């Protein structure tokens, strides 16, 4: 187990190193001179040189890379070109909103997927199954930026139940969470269905039924618990899609999170902030995935790792 932990940690560190390098290189793929793009056409040569030196862009690439990595390790992500604030502060300000949205989206997904997937598996090849799987098909196919406006049209504009956008009240979270959670709910309910179908054939399920437990208990206590592993794996793997989806969902609902910050920074050509956002979201994703692996090993004593 210890060697397993160590090898996981090592490969996570290698991936994080690679991710930071790629994010560092992002700014250098900008066609033309990034300084010119940042300052616009009318900037004087003095201003350009000043910014170039301030950002360290006058140094050789490998030196900039070294500075970037050492600064990052010390928590310095540079300063916003727009507001002059430290990038780290900007990110920290936005984290709670995105975490809340992602958590709520995840909750919506799980709350929808487990009953739907179970229903589809238990009533296999019935109307319930087809209904649930049609929902899943629609859910995978409808993008956030369509789902969001449709929900706004229905529940905010026509029915007037919920606010159109913003994050002032608790009710403002409902529509963004549903928008973000639907796609994951769809993928997850398929997964719940197929793993439950596998589990339902097992001997212990037959035993549970045979000793007279009611079906609800059999599903909750015996079947779903054994189907939990693949479901948790899928949740970990899909978190990246969820976080990327949050970028678009935040734009639809003017939700003041990391996604909105990312897009605003892209439009303002505020490169340090763009780098910071991409770095933070990717790091979160990598760490959660590694965490999923550990949870997996912890939940299932049969899983042994030999590395």
């Amino acid at each position, binding site marked *: 187990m210890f060697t397993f932990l160590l090898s996981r940690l090592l490969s996570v560190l290698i*991936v994080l190193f690679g991710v930071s390098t790629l994010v560092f290189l992002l700014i250098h*793929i900008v066609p033309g001179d990034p300084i010119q793009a940042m300052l616009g056409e009318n900037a004087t040569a003095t201003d350009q040189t000043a910014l170039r030196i301030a950002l360290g862009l006058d140094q050789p690439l490998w030196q900039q890379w070294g500075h970037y990595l050492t600064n990052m390790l010390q928590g310095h992500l540079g300063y916003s070109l727009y507001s002059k604030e430290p990038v780290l502060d900007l990110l920290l300000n936005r984290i709670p909103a995105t975490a809340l949205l992602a958590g709520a989206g995840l909750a919506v997904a799980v709350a929808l997927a487990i009953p739907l997937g179970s229903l589809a598996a238990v009533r296999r090849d019935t109307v319930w199954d087809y209904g649930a799987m049609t929902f899943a098909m629609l859910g995978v196919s409808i993008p956030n930026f369509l789902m969001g406006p449709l929900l706004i049209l229905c529940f905010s504009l026509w029915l007037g139940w919920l606010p159109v956008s913003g994050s002032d009240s608790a009710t403002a979270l409902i529509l963004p969470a549903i928008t973000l959670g639907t796609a994951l709910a769809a993928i997850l309910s398929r997964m719940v269905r197929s793993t439950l179908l596998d589990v339902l054939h097992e001997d212990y399920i037959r035993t549970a039924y045979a000793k007279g437990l009611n079906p609800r208990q059999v599903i909750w206590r015996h079947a779903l618990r054994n189907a939990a592993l693949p479901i948790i794996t899928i949740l970990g793997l899909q978190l990246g*899609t969820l976080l990327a989806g949050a970028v678009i969902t935040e734009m639809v609902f003017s939700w003041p999170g990391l996604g909105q910050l990312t897009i605003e920074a892209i439009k303002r050509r505020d490169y340090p902030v763009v780098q910071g956002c*991409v770095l933070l979201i990717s790091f979160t994703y990598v760490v959660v995935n590694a965490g999923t692996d550990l949870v997996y090993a912890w939940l299932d004593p049969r899983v042994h790792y030999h590395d």
Partner: protein
Amino acid sequence: MIKLIAWRIGFAGCVLLLWFGLAISAPWLPLQPTEIHLSAILQPPSWQSILGYDDLGRLLLDRLIMGATTSFFVAIAVIVVSLSLGTFIGLVSAWLGGWVDLIVVRIIDIFLAFPGLLLAIALAGLLGPGIENVVIALSVVGWVGFARLARAQTLSLKRREHVLAAQAMGASSGRILLRHVLPLLTTPLLIEATFGIASIVIAEAGLSFLGLGVQPPAASWGSMIRDGTSYLLVAPHMVLAPGLALLLVVLAVNMLGDQLRDRLDVRQV
């Protein structure tokens, strides 16, 4: 059950044929996607104009067809680039093994560590708007999945008897990969590519929705939806028409992928 499947294939086929047909024939259709009718701004669908007009008084149907062209050609271009690049990298990496393979696996891991759409958003944003940059950004993200699949499949095929036999007969590596390995990869790659098209269509529309994709006056379903969100209450058709088109195409492609996967019985390695 059989009926349901037949119905699904029929539906998917019709939608995809329509998408393909409109995208290909758009240049020869009498369309006026940029023509402005000031007296018809935001007009809802009617007998004279099937889908109504948008906020600038342009015919929505014509713009919808232009959007079909955009999404179709972006999808094809990205699939062609990322499928061939990914397959090549995966094949060669698995075949050569050793340090080449180690490096390729690390690179794949790093790319997979980014949420795909996020990397595409950042790339498209930094490269600047425009259809070519959308294709570049989505290809940079897209090749990874194909490379991983091709690599995994090649690793297991490498030790198959027919490959060993070909090696024993003195066939060159290139010939073995092309004639004895690649043909066995086509099915899983085809299925991956089908689902890939669905996510590319969504991603292209997503980038355009964020204003990072196709620029006006060119049309994309994503930018049409974005324009429509400002007029949701007065002109819901501006969101509903491109939204429904997008949903139908993605749904059809996903259904096709599901059917292919079920029928071709891919044994995952």
